[in-house]
């Protein structure tokens, strides 16, 4: 991984939940700092697992210089706080202070910034873009939001973009000077659909919805532009996608799909980190009393071993494979992260 760490500006760690992606991202960060780079590890995980792995109890939403480090480079870490990223996005892109205040109070907005599907992906990418354009770091490692499917984080923001499309926003917008919302719509179909929404959600909700969409009109262009910029950065030569997967045949099958999906979007997969591998040894080195148990475990892991071999064949050359043994996984402080980073 050293070659990637030294040559890239951005490393994106993708993978499904529960594969140890956050820990691997942190370990990559440590490795980069050991190699002398000024590196930021950005994680979106709300359970703050990175904080645990880095041995600090709390991470602010601002970039934080990880304490007690003694590396040639410097290691920074931050947690993407969806709400605060969204709030700054509104503050920075809406000029009227009273309008900003109004939006931040709107209950639809309060749900949007944390509850809309795609919000977490958007805020992660927006937060990344800010750190990237600040040019403060040699390398940014982005631990992508955990998704059911590794590729979903790239599409998540698109959902939000679709929601902010003019047609949608206009549809909900309150016509200026007209307080009677429902009567102002010309299309009878639209009017009926609105009534249907009102039947389900209540008039109060519809009113706030209309207010919200009227207020954020105009943000869509900025949102779309910023996400476009992010995709451009990801497609550049100095960005690398790393897939973290666990030693599990089902997860490894997903890795194949992930690579295809990446390629179809014009991105390239640089490395696959297979986490928590069962360390195989020669059976004759094991005392006879434990040998049957070793063989039972080995047999249990056989199907996963075969899936890994098949994955390597499918992916072919040009993608680096790194197997991390389950042995190296006891991560509770910076020192243990340093040990794990050696495996990378």
């Amino acid at each position, binding site marked *: 991984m050293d070659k990637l760490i030294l040559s890239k500006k951005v490393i994106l760690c993708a993978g499904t939940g*529960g594969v*140890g992606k956050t*820990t691997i991202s942190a370990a990559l960060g440590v490795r980069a700092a050991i190699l002398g780079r000024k590196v930021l590890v950005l994680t979106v995980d*709300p*359970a703050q*697992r990175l904080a*645990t*792995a880095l041995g600090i109890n709390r991470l602010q939403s601002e970039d934080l210089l990880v304490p007690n480090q003694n590396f040639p480079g410097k290691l920074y870490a931050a947690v993407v706080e969806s709400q605060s990223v969204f709030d700054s996005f509104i503050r920075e892109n809406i000029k009227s202070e009273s309008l900003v205040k109004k939006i931040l109070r709107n*209950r*639809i907005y309060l*749900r*949007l910034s944390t*509850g*809309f*599907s795609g919000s977490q992906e958007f805020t992660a990418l927006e937060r990344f873009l800010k750190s990237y354009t600040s040019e403060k770091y040699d390398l940014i490692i982005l631990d992508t939001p*955990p998704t*059911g*499917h590794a590729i979903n984080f790239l599409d998540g923001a698109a*959902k*939000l973009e*679709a*929601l902010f*499309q003019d*047609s*949608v926003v206009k*549809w*909900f917008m309150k016509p200026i000077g007209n307080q009677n919302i429902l009567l102002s719509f010309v299309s009878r*179909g*639209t009017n*009926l*659909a609105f009534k*249907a*929404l009102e*039947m*389900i*959600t*209540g*008039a*109060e*909700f519809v009113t706030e919805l209309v207010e919200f969409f009227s207020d954020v009109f105009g943000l869509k262009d900025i949102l779309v532009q910023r996400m476009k910029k992010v995709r451009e950065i990801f497609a550049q030569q100095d960005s690398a996608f790393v897939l973290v997967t666990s030693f599990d045949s*089902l997860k490894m099958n997903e890795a194949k799909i992930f690579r295809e999906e990446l390629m179809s979007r014009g991105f390239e997969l640089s490395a696959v980190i297979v986490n928590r591998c069962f*360390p195989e*040894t020669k059976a004759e*080195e*094991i*005392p006879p*009393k*434990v040998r049957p*148990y070793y063989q*039972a*475990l080995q*047999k*249990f892991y056989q199907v996963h071993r075969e899936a890994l071999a098949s994955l390597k064949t499918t992916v072919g050359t040009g993608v680096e494979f790194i197997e991390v*043994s*389950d*042995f190296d*996984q*006891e*991560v*509770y402080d910076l020192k243990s992260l340093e040990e794990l980073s050696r495996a990378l």
Partner: protein
Amino acid sequence: MGKSAVSAALAFQQASLGRRTLLVELGERSFFQEMFQLPKVDYEPTYLKENLDVSIWKSEKCIREYVLHYLPIKKLYQLFFENRVMRTFINAAPAIAELAILGKATSGVRKIGPPMDYDVIVIDCFSTGHFLALLRAPKGFSETIKSGPFGEQTAAITRTMLDESTTAYVLVSTAETLPSVETRELFETLRSEFGLHPLVICNRLLHPPQDAIENEQSSFQKYLKFILERQEKYEKTLRELSPQLVELPLVLDSTGGRDLAHQLSEKLKDQN
């Protein structure tokens, strides 16, 4: 963590007690289809074994069923879903999918919507972050929408969900650092935020022979020693959280998904 396998084992155990059981998975892609080698797992229940059916609740299907409940006039319903804008909104809207899933899960108890002929529903839920979003959805909604049919339904869903005489919560962990930390955080959040008392299951425990790590010399024995020490440490952490901790082994000799679920369900039975 093996959450899906444990969910399946719980469903197998309930079915073996003679209860009509529905095993449900959430999300867009079926895991159980592969695990149980079924031709298809869909929204409509598929027969798995005696007393046990399996379903996948994709959010769009749940939303449709949920909305249909409020818009019994077919034309209005069609209008709602054929409207592109409305579809975009519904797909991204805060908590609507979550609410529809919970609405479906609690519909039997609330005696609302299409009847579901089951004594128990076992749901293989999302992992931590998304699971909390699921639980928080009705609360967020009832704060946004207080009145109207939606508001009333939301309140009823919340009541059913938080009533521990009808709904039980099971957290699946392993005896490793990060999973046990995450389980502890989730356990405490469920207790403080929702007043819930989840059952904790520690999965995938290794049980090598008694003397396996005596005079450990080989790298495999060192590995085992490391695993066993870690296991002991975090099992203790989990037991402090929940004294009724349920222990499940890493099943090394299963012949497939059904056998795995069966073996685990037998272990669950042993521990009552």
